[in-house]
């Protein structure tokens, strides 16, 4: 492993429909299924699933991280590459707290009125996702 801590590695974020980010990064923080972990160049090879949360990308040491919300997926890490397969991804600054709170309340009321099970499962899934978004913004657990 190199001692050079300013080394960059290739970071890619792809969703099923398009490639979203492809750039060199210094450090990436990923919300893994079994705990959040950071990746730098020379990280040992790892495949992990990701829970809904925020990925923080620092392009060079000392830079402010760009934050991207992803709704789950997988990360594939090698010493020189880090690829994230995201189910859904959006920039954190594009998320609006008011909109999401509104979405949560409308989803909750829809869920209460839902008749068949399929509808319920679909709404519950959307609700979990919306709550994860809210958690990502406020940084605290949504009720």
């Amino acid at each position, binding site marked *: 492993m190199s001692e050079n801590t300013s080394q960059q590695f290739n970071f*890619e974020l*792809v*969703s*099923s*429909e*398009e*490639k979203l980010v492809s750039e060199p990064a210094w450090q990436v923080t990923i919300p*893994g*299924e*079994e705990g959040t972990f950071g990746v730098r160049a020379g990280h*040992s*090879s*790892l*495949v*992990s*699933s990701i829970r809904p949360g925020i990925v923080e990308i620092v392009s060079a040491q000392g830079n402010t991280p760009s934050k991207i919300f992803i709704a789950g997926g*997988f990360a*594939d890490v*090698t*010493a020189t590459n880090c*690829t994230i*397969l995201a*189910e859904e991804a959006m920039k954190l600054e594009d998320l609006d707290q008011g909109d999401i709170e509104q979405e949560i309340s409308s989803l909750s009321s829809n869920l209460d009125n839902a008749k068949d099970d399929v509808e319920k499962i679909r709404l519950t899934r959307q609700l979990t996702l919306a709550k994860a978004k809210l958690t990502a913004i406020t940084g605290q657990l949504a009720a």
Partner: protein
Amino acid sequence: MPSLKDYRDRIASVKSTKKITSAMKMVAASKLKKAQSQAEASQPYARAMAEMLERVAAGVTITDASPKLLIGTGSEQRHLLVVVTSDRGLCGGFNGNLVRLARIEINRLLSEGKEVQIITVGRKARDLLKREHGSKIIKNFTGIGGSSRVSFAEANQVTEMVLDQFEAGNFDVCSLIYNNFKSVMTQEPKAQQIIPFSLTDTIRANDNDAPEVLASPYAFEPEENEILGLLLPKNLGVQLFRALLDSAAGEQAARMTAMDNATRNAGEKIDGLTLVYNRARQAAITKELIEIISGAEAV
């Protein structure tokens, strides 16, 4: 004998048909471009997924605890076929060829004494299979890619349906029958088994960009079989999405070719009709002249 006006009307009608077919050709060409760029945009994900699966597969030991999507149910008795066509016609042999392959597959399975269920994607698949195999169709999806663009969410509806049926234990083997987009000129109907999943097939499908397998040992979080259980349904979604994209691009390509031919035929028809029309017109003029001359001679 048709009058001159009849000829004029026929020429006008063929001309307006030609206008329609050439407009459809141009619309199809622009939709094809969109569909192709979308198919390209979805490539990185599919490739990354294949790479990841390969890595996990290299590290996993297949046991009875492995996901059923990989090892199967232990039986091959009940088959589910997902037949992907377009919603609309006027695209040459695109749907006909595909449904022909589907029929061959169905009849082969039935003759081997297997049970067959069908999920159809696209109105044409349902319409063309309804008479013969209507009772086997358990679900029909229409309107996918209707807004000129196949979204992953739409593809996911089909994926979820397939997975739900699998988890409910309603079938053992699932195959996908779709039009593989080879080029603008050729779309090839293709049958591909998606459950139980064959790792080598996916890797071969991505062969042109064969990922280098790294010798370094991988760590898995959570452990291999579990992550495989999470990856495989996602991969199924990717495969279905890709098939739908291929089919959407193929449909537009087939329509473009069909409409190009139709436009050319209409042009030839107009030329032929114009020739006949002119001949008839000249014959009428000649006849009139003869009448005048012979009338004058008689005086």
